């Protein structure tokens, strides 16, 4: 049996988000506007996709699937970039985040479609789009966290990094510990959700399948598959991003190169 949600149910939840924003404004935590924009976007975007999803799943045009995937990867790359406090100048920021999403989510989705799902045709949108979506949605969180942590910490610890360079460390050695911290930040969400799965949280996809009448064990198998793919995707994505950015933070003479970062606007975020 499916319990339908009324407009009242949704507005109740919306009031909670509103209160959170007000509290953050009162405490000058500066997250309110971002929070409201994200909440509004989630409403509009989900409603729109709910309307067209049926049509998307019905189509089997390869070009159409490619087009949607490219849009999804670009938007996710853009979102990663806009979660960054300090961004790389020019196209580097977007290039690195979208590139790492491509390596992680995109390639892993394709691998999974070919070897595990084996739909006919292999790019069948009913499988390809939700799979890519789930991977992107989760890996972009890890990548955004790892990237932000790396650049922020490097910025704050500039004297320590330069001290290590003065002592003859290579650029790689000088930033190794910061990179390790950033890797941990990026991976904590997914490691948490794997560790808590089943005991603390019932993952959404699995619960949804069971609610819709699928056999629990089948739903669980799918969930494990997805979890592992998300973990691998996040891990490879974060590693790629950290590697590329730490390269970009130094020039060819192993000097810190913060002039490659955009200047912080006074009251950004």
């Amino acid at each position: 049996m499916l319990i339908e949600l009324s407009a009242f149910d949704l507005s109740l939840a919306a009031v909670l988000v509103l209160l959170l924003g007000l509290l953050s404004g009162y405490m000058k935590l500066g997250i309110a506007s971002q929070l409201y924009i994200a909440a509004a976007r989630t409403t509009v975007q989900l409603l729109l996709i709910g309307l067209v999803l049926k049509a998307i799943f019905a189509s089997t045009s390869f070009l159409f699937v490619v087009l949607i995937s490219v849009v999804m990867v670009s938007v996710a790359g853009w979102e990663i970039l806009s979660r960054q406090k300090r961004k790389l100048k020019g196209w580097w920021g977007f290039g690195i985040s979208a590139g790492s999403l491509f390596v992680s989510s995109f390639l892993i989705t394709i691998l999974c479609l070919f070897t595990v799902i084996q739909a006919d045709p292999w790019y069948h949108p009913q499988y390809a789009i939700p799979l890519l979506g789930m991977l992107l949605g989760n890996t972009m969180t890890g990548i955004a966290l790892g990237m932000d942590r790396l650049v922020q910490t490097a910025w704050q610890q500039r004297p320590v990094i330069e001290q290590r360079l003065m002592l003859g460390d290579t650029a790689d050695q000088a930033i190794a510990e910061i990179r390790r911290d950033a890797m941990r930040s990026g991976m904590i969400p997914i490691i948490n959700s794997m560790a808590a799965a089943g005991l603390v949280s019932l993952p959404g996809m699995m619960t949804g399948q069971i609610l819709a009448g699928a056999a629990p064990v089948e739903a669980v198998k799918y969930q494990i598959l997805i979890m592992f793919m998300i973990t691998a995707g996040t891990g490879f994505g974060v590693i790629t991003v950290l590697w590329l950015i730490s390269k970009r933070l130094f020039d060819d003479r192993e000097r810190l190169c913060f002039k490659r970062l955009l200047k912080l606007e006074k009251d950004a975020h």
Partner: protein
Amino acid sequence: MNLFSVRQLQYFQCGPVDIEIKAAECIGISGESGSGKSLLLRALADLDDHQGKIMLDDIEQHDICAHQWRKKVALLSAETQWWFDTVAQHFTSLPSQQLEALGFNQDVSDWSISRLSSGEKQRLGLLRLLENKPEVLLLDEPTANLDKKNTQLFEKFVLNYLENNSACAIWVGHDVQQLQRICHRRYDIDNGQLVSV
């Protein structure tokens, strides 16, 4: 080393700077705050962008990796940084002889970084830097936070090192008497140019 030579060095809005320093020599540089003394040392250690030719004997700066250069041409900045918890973690070894020469006991190795005074950090920073056996020492106001006794220990230690390792040093400082005491030649930085004193 035999000769550390700097030709037509330009960095930021400063220069051109020419210097030649022989083994066991120590030269002093003074100048007003903001005259570019620290930036000069940073350029020599290849930490900032610059033009010109910097040679250590027959090795040009850009012929070797930057981190190898910085092991040979070592900069002791005015404020040293420490990132582990204890002193010992920053060293591969802490010979008691050297510690004593700089006025420390052996137990300094167990000290936590947070209890070090700025003067202690400078002296330990020197020891840490010398672990690489640098051939050129770039010292940026190294005794600014030291009392008289420790300043003398520090000077003696550096001069001994230069002598025993045929290294050379550039000593940046404000104390003219000190520079007269320890340096073979002295320069002033004026309008980004080195002027012999």
